[in-house]
């Protein structure tokens, strides 16, 4: 199968590309970021923005049969309005190109933060639930909108087998993404009096799940998860970090200061309340089985990203 991966230079996307290549697929990608060694692995990377002409040219000339859309970003990596443009306009462009150029299968790789963190929402979120608590954390609005937009392809583009996948927090060795960024320092801020459950998945398991979704040609919306969730304090402790519980108001004040990310106060809800997903639908559709326990995942991360010995407060 000819698989195109927009956003191929990202950590998980690279691993997926290599795994698919190893499994005998033809793999190419589009990204504004470089991936120097891709050609050596037999993977072609077209440099450019998915919203620009260069991306459409790739669809026209390379003729992918399947697309795994991973060119979305979070508030941790791209701040401001540009993030919204990448997530929404980029997603629209990818879906339009798929429809125009006869792509048979499309996977949109979203995030479980779609469901929002709120004290009165169900602990386990099924795919049938709406997004919640968006008013508290506007930084997530464009990702949620992109996810909802992707889901419209299920009825707008019936000729394209579309799967909308919602991934939990991931950790690799050393790993990329929101949780790895959060754990990068010696000390990790926590909200005093709270210890939410976190769903964590090892990156190799994520890649396996994405490969299965592709090869089983899943259609619909699916939560993806590995081992059962664990409290954030366990993640912090087992990765060798020191949790620093701070009162909510102190932490709100520190956002955007002293090395803390510039996020809305509502983002702290993700350190108060759990976002845990029910993945039974995906298990039934694909037979997925995770290989890495939580202990394995945290140990691998700790070994690959040891605690920094010096530096700032965090």
């Amino acid at each position, binding site marked *: 199968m000819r698989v195109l991966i927009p956003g191929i230079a990202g950590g998980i996307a690279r691993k997926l590309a290599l795994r698919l290549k190893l499994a005998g697929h033809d793999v190419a990608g589009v990204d504004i970021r470089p991936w120097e060694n891709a050609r050596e692995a037999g993977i072609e990377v077209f440099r450019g923005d998915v919203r620009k002409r260069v991306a459409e040219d790739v669809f026209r000339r390379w003729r992918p049969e399947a697309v795994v859309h991973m060119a979305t970003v979070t508030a941790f990596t791209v701040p401001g309005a540009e993030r919204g443009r990448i997530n929404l306009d980029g997603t629209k462009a990818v879906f339009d190109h798929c429809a125009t150029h006869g792509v048979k299968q499309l996977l949109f790789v979203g995030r479980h933060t779609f469901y929002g963190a709120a*004290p*009165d929402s*169900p*602990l*386990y979120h*099924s795919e049938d639930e709406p997004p919640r608590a968006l008013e508290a954390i506007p930084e997530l609005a464009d990702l949620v909108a992109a996810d909802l937009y992707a889901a419209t392809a299920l009825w707008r583009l019936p000729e394209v087998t579309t799967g909308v996948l919602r991934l939990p927090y991931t950790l690799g060795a050393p790993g990329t993404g929101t949780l790895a960024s959060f754990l990068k320092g010696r000390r990790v801020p926590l*909200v*005093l*009096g*709270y*210890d*939410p*459950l976190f769903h964590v998945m090892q990156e190799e398991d994520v890649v396996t799940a994405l490969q299965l979704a592709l090869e089983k040609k899943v259609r619909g919306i699916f939560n993806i998860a590995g*081992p*059962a*969730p*664990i*409290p954030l304090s*366990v993640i912090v402790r*087992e990765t060798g970090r020191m949790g620093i519980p701070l009162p*909510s108001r102190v932490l709100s004040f520190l956002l955007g200061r002293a090395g803390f990310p510039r996020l809305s106060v509502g983002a702290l809800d993700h350190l*108060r*309340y*759990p976002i845990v997903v029910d993945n039974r639908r995906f298990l039934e559709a694909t037979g997925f089985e995770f290989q890495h*326990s*939580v*202990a394995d995942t945290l140990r691998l991360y700790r070994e690959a990203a040891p605690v920094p010995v010096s530096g700032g407060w965090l």
Partner: protein
Amino acid sequence: MALSDGLEARVDRLELPFNEYGVDPYGISKKHVRDALRLFTLIYRYYFRVRCHGIHHIPARGRGMLVGNHSGGVAVDGAMVLTSTMLEMDPPRLSQGMVERFLHKFPVSSLWASRTGQFTGLPEHAKRLLEDDRLLMIFPEGARGTAKLYPDRYSLVDFGTGFVRLALQTRSPIIPFAFLGGGSAIPTVFNAYTLGKLLGVPYIPLTPYLLPLPLPVQLEIHYGEPLVFHGTGDEDDHVIEGYVAKVKERIAGLIELGRAGRQHRGLARKLLP
């Protein structure tokens, strides 16, 4: 054997799928359950001197719904029911309450409620837990039940009907129970709703000595025979209301049975004015 050693063994014998960190898929933590049980056991045995009857009616394994009356202005009843299933059952079972929404909003209470398996009273939670063969604890009177004033302490206010539909959908037995003495332990004379609203809770119960601190009144829990209803949960309201009335009637009967026993033992005159 020291009290704490026995409690630790009881928590170890819980038939829940704890992982290598002592946490189950719902976030219930052995450590937190153990710590909470240490405190609750002291209160259960030495402060309230709880008498528990009919514990054999609770199934040792498999799904079940403990359904009873609220008694007392704060959740003393829930804490003591939880302690009774941990201390009096063999093997012990953790009863998981469906709690008021505000409990998960606040620091500390959110953490302890989550780690001991006490989740917000949502149908999604109840259904999932029952399908996982857990033991649910439900007070169908809701917050109106804990708001009962001292003279109404043995009455029952309106029951919600959702619990019966859930029992039918999940084919779960309902184990009725009566909780006695909570209304005397916290003799509420007035509920401060406005103050409660300001603090983010439904109300603050006020007692003759102002604060809702429980008095050392002997408490009793009477578990009754399980009730099993057959159906799909999609029945008309009047059918469901009929089942709810049966549960309510059974709980009222258990309350009367308990009160008669207390009078017989002369406790009512001494401790339950």
